């Protein structure tokens, strides 16, 4: 066979370029279109949540409902949402006593006396669906992504299981599902909210402490809630543009 070096290099180059383009095209075909209800328009929504700390009674309904709805492993180290109990001596915000037995799944056994002069309250935690999420930023393949309607989601068929996103989340909202060996987190019950329902945790909350919020809906009570209450987000110094707003968030909460 008479092939000059120039021809050989030229042909290998063409082959390389063509096969790479074909592979990317095939990837795009395989990826398909995002799942959504027919009447749902992602452009019309911007999701988040409001949490009223004064209303949370630590019953754990939300934790149980979430684990059931989303098939979250029952072990005490895997949670899409959990509840923390704070016990704060008023002049020592730096050192609150915090516990979350089994993430609050079984409720909270009585532990502190009511009239010892301390502050006691519950803080439900959930993915903050940050608009500038460090977890989305660090994912090496883009398996974790922002949906156009403001929900941070994971493509489990694409996740490598490298755990960089878990390290990057300042709030501890992510874990590796031992069954799929991919990362798992709160989807804000995306399968429900795109059908006009609320999240499992909000639905299960007996006191209305958690409320799903659609910031793009002018009629959503979230606007009045944000206007009328002293609200705050967790760890504002992280500048993640969290979309979970807490009413009456104590300075001791981490």
């Amino acid at each position, binding site marked *: 066979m008479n092939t000059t070096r120039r021809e050989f290099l030229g042909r290998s180059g063409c082959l390389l370029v063509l096969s790479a383009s074909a592979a990317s095209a095939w990837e795009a075909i395989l990826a398909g279109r995002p799942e959504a209800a027919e009447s749902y328009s992602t452009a019309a929504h911007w999701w988040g949540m409001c949490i009223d700390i004064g209303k949370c009674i630590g019953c754990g309904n939300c934790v149980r409902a979430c684990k059931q709805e989303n098939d979250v492993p029952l072990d005490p*180290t895997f949670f899409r949402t959990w509840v923390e109990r704070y016990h704060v001596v008023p002049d020592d915000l730096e050192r609150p006593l915090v516990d*979350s037995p089994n993430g609050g799944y079984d409720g909270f056994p009585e532990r502190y006396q009511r009239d010892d002069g301390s502050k006691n309250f519950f803080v439900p935690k959930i993915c903050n669906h940050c608009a500038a999420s460090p977890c989305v930023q660090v994912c090496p393949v883009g398996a974790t992504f922002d949906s156009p309607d403001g929900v941070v989601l994971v493509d489990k068929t694409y*996740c*490598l299981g*490298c*755990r960089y996103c878990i*390290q*990057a989340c300042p709030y501890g909202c992510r874990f590796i599902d031992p069954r799929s060996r*991919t990362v798992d987190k709160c989807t804000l019950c995306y399968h429900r909210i795109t059908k006009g329902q609320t999240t499992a945790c909000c639905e299960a909350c007996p006191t209305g402490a958690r409320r799903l919020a659609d910031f793009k809906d002018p009629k959503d009570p979230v606007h009045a809630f944000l206007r009328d209450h002293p609200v705050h987000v967790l760890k504002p110094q992280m500048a993640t543009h969290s979309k979970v707003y807490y009413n009456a968030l104590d300075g001791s909460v981490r």
Partner: protein
Amino acid sequence: MEGLLQGVQGFMYPNEIELQWSLLIVLYRFITGLVAGAFILASLERVFNVQAVKPTYRLALLTALAFLLVAPLPLQLHLGHPGRSFEMYLTPHTASAMAMFGFVYLWYLMAVLVLEIWLDYRRDIVLMWRESRGWRRRIYGALALWSDNISDEALRFDDRLGRLLTIIGIPSAFLLHGYVGFIFGSVKANPWWSTPLMPIVFLFSAIVSGIALVMLVYMAAAWFRDRRIDMACVDTIARYLMYAFIIDFSLEMLDLVHRVYEADESFKTLDFMVRTRLYTSQVLVQIILGTLAPIALLAATQVFKLGAAVRTRLYLVAGVLTLVGIFAMRWNVVIGGQLFSKSFLGYTTYKIGFATREGLLPAIVLMLLPFAILWILVKLLPPWRPDHARPG
């Protein structure tokens, strides 16, 4: 699971109790550091023309290659889906610090290290191809890419290109390990990692560990081959080791002083961790045994007039302690960064399995593997055949 919960002191967010990055990630950082360091030592001779370290030039390159080939293995073993790691090449997420690893790695492996070794050895390979018979002949033929042109002109071209590659190679080695440091240093959620000093501390510690490794490999090779150690060579290497170590230690102390003086919100938590859970690995092993002791030993060889035998022994001990210290540093960064809660209210414990996927056994195997590869490389491409020295 019960054991995990018992290892918790104070409060951890529930998802934080189990550590995410294991011993294998410690190993990955340790190994990439050795690669970068070994390469930079090799480059000293080539670019800056330091004749004294010439006997280690090829050995350092082969050592870098042996370790570089193993570097991605602990990562692969750690991934939940190793089969998908190729997606990092096909659909890299450009905002991710980690996404570039594959490209940096391939660039360094193929464009720099393999090519530089090949150019340097090409004359030897062709000569061995001509001399050998049977399967060895086929291997050397393939290694020479079936081209036996070793005319003076061709060799001069090889040398020029090799020199150019080394010049490109030094920033590439800096990039490789500085980049590994950036993966950690850019995690703002973790105050133990998040510092702009991280890439540069990692780079200097990489240089330190790589120099120590090559020095030890050279001494071991001399012992195995029953040859005299070239004292001018190891004296020079040991001196570089000491200088690099002093810079590295100063940078680490700068980081420490800065943390102590600034005493931000994370300080009390991290300070308590260093005094308790990390005390042995950080204060005793990393700082005292693995940094101050080897620097003192190396300094002693500079200050006092010691005989060759004593110096050799001191270098040996200092080299081993250096590797132990740098390994401890990798451990303290990777594992230490996950022992405390991001709520700053508690601590967890790291439990290593033995014959598990990310346990001690695979870690030991992965640590021995580069030496096995190096042995094969040295057999295949002997770094010390004087009759095949580079021209000119």
